[in-house]
C-alpha cells in the first residue's frame, strides 16, 4: 500500500509508452496519427520539445518510418507509433532497418483487421506480421505489454534492445492496454537502465562499419561524426558495399541472426504466475494476461490449480520457458488469444504436444473475459 507520500499516478497505456520513450532517451519521433495509437504521438509532440527532442508529423507511415531510420543513422534514438494499417505500410522499411542494422522502435497498438478492419476495437492479429511482415529471412525482436506499468518498462527495454543489438524492435500493445488507465508508481530515474549504442573508437579511416566482432554487433558511427560509410538495403560486405559473393552474403546474413541469438536469454522475457503447483498452464500476452489472472483467482478458489505463463517477449519465441513449465508437471496448456491462434501454433511447435495444447480465440473486437477462460480450463 502507498507510503505516506502518495506518488502513485493515474496513467494511460499510451501515456506510459510516451513517458517510457522520453525516459529511455528517445529524442526523435515521426508518425502519423491513427487510433488507438494517437495519444503516443499527441503526448510526444508536447514532451519532446521540452527535452530538446524533435517531433514531426509525416505525410504517412511510410514517411514516418523512413524519417526515424534517418534520425537514428544521425545518432538519435528514434521511435514511431502506429496501428494495423500504418504498420502494414511500414513493413518494407522495417526490412531496410534490419539489413542496414539501424536501431529503431516501432510501437504497434493492435486493432481489429485485416485492412481498415475494426477501428478501433482490441485485437492481437498482428503477432505474426510483427515477426514476418517484412520480406526475406530477417531477425526481429517483438515485445508485448500486458498492463500500463509494463508499457512503460517495455518501451525502455525496446529502446535498449534496439540500441544494443542494432536491430528494429517492435513493441505490441492492444487497444485495451493502450487506452486503459491504471494506478502506477514509476521507478526513479536512477533505477532505470538506459543503454546507449556503441560508437566506433578507431580513427575514421580504420572504420569497418559492418565488421564482425565477438558480440556480432558492429559499433555504429553517426552521420556527421566524420565516419564515411555506405548504407544500403542490398546485402553488403563488411564495408557496407553491395555484394553477391556467396561467402560474404552468408557471413553477413548469418551474423545479423547470430547477434540476436547471443542475446536470446536477455531478450526473452516471461513471467511465471502460480505455476509451481499448477496442473494447467495458461499462455497469454497483452491484455489477455489480465483476464487470465482474474480467471486464475476464481479457479484457485474452487481448488483448480492453474498458473499462467506471461509472455513479454514474443520473438525470439521464449521456448526455454516451456521446458521449465513442463518440468512443473503441467497436464495441459490453454492459449487464449484475440486472433485465431498465432501464438498457439508456436506453443504447439515448442511443446511438441507432449501434453494437450488447446486454444481459445475471440476475433470480434472484445477482450476475452475471465469467465470464458474459466469455462475453457474446466473442459480439460
Amino acid at each position, binding site marked *: *500500500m*502507498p507510503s505516506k507520500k*502518495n506518488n*502513485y*499516478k*493515474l496513467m494511460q497505456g499510451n501515456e506510459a509508452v510516451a513517458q517510457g520513450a522520453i525516459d529511455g532517451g528517445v529524442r526523435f519521433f515521426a508518425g502519423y496519427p491513427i*487510433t*488507438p495509437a494517437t495519444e503516443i504521438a499527441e503526448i510526444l509532440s508536447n514532451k519532446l520539445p521540452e527535452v530538446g527532442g524533435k517531433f514531426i508529423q509525416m505525410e504517412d507511415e511510410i514517411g514516418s518510418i523512413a524519417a526515424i531510420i534517418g534520425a537514428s543513422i544521425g545518432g538519435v534514438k528514434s521511435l514511431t507509433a502506429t496501428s494495423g494499417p500504418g504498420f502494414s505500410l511500414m513493413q518494407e522499411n522495417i526490412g531496410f532497418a534490419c539489413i542496414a542494422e539501424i536501431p529503431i522502435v516501432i510501437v504497434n497498438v493492435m486493432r481489429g483487421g485485416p485492412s481498415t478492419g475494426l*477501428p*478501433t*476495437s482490441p485485437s492481437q492479429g498482428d503477432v505474426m506480421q510483427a515477426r514476418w511482415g517484412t520480406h526475406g529471412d530477417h531477425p526481429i525482436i517483438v515485445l508485448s505489454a500486458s498492463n500500463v506499468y509494463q508499457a512503460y518498462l517495455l518501451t525502455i527495454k525496446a529502446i535498449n534492445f534496439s540500441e544494443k543489438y542494432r536491430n528494429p524492435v517492435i513493441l505490441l500493445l492492444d*487497444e*485495451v492496454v493502450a*487506452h*486503459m*488507465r*491504471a*494506478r502506477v508508481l514509476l521507478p526513479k530515474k536512477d533505477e532505470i537502465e538506459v543503454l546507449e549504442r556503441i560508437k566506433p573508437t578507431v580513427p575514421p579511416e580504420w572504420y569497418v562499419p559492418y565488421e564482425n566482432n565477438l558480440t556480432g554487433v558492429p559499433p555504429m558511427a553517426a552521420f556527421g561524426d566524420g565516419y564515411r560509410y555506405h548504407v544500403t538495403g542490398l546485402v553488403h560486405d563488411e564495408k557496407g558495399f553491395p555484394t553477391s559473393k556467396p561467402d560474404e552474403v552468408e557471413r553477413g546474413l548469418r551474423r545479423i541472426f547470430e547477434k540476436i541469438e547471443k542475446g536470446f536469454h536477455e531478450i526473452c522475457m516471461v513471467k511465471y504466475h502460480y505455476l509451481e503447483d499448477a496442473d494447467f498452464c495458461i499462455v497469454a500476452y497483452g*491484455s489477455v494476461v*489480465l*483476464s*487470465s*489472472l*482474474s480467471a486464475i*483467482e476464481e479457479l484457485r478458489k474452487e481448488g483448480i490449480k492453474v498458473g499462467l505463463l506471461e509472455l513479454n517477449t514474443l520473438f525470439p519465441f521464449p521456448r526455454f520457458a516451456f521446458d521449465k513449465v513442463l518440468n512443473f508437471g503441467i497436464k495441459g496448456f490453454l492459449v487464449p488469444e484475440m486472433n485465431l491462434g498465432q501464438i498457439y501454433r508456436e506453443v504447439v511447435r515448442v511443446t511438441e504436444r507432449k501434453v494437450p495444447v488447446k486454444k481459445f480465440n475471440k476475433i470480434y473486437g472484445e*477482450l476475452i*473475459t*475471465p469467465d470464458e477462460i474459466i469455462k475453457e480450463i474446466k473442459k480439460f
Partner: protein
Amino acid sequence: MKERVEIRLAGTGGQGLITAGIILAEAAILDGKNVVQSQSYGPEARGGASKAEVIISDREIYYPKTSNPDILLAMSQEACNKYFNDLKPGGILIVDSTFITNVPSSSAYQIPITKMTIEKLKKPVFANIVALGILCEITKIVTRKSLTKAVLERVPEAFIEQNKKALQLGFRLAKKELKNRKEPEEFTADE
C-alpha cells in the same frame, strides 16, 4: 471495502463523463486504493451513448472491464435503458432526472442533476462534477477530501471556484435525496 467495486458512468458524448471517470479514479488513488479506468471508444463517443468505467479495490485489479457494475450513474435515457440491466442485483442506480423520465427502478436515486446545475451555476458543463459530488455522498466510494482534491487538480485555475461550488451542490443534493428516502420507522406488531 469490498474487494472490487465497479462503477459505470454513462450518458451522452459531451457530458464530461470520461473526465468524471478520470477524476473519480484519481480520487481513489488519493484514498490509497488501487484503480483502473477505461472508456468506450468508437463512433458512439460522438453524441451517442458514451461511458466511462472505474474499478476501485484494495487489492490488485486484473481484468480491467466491468460487466456487472455495482454502481451506475446514468445521465441520459438511452444510457439508462442500455446499461440498467447490467447493474448487479442490489446495485446502486443514480439517474439525472432532467433527462431520465422513464426510471427502471423504484430504488433509483433520482436527482435533476443538469437542471439544478444550470439553475445554480448557470452552465450545464459543471453537471459532471455535480454528479461526482452526488456519487461520492451516496456511495462513499471515495472520500470527500480526495474527491475535492482530485477535482481541483484536474480543472483549469480559472474554473476552480465554480467547480468547488459544483461539488458542494452535488453533496447537498445527495444529502437532500438521502433524507427524503429515509426508510419509514420500522413497524412492529407490539405497538
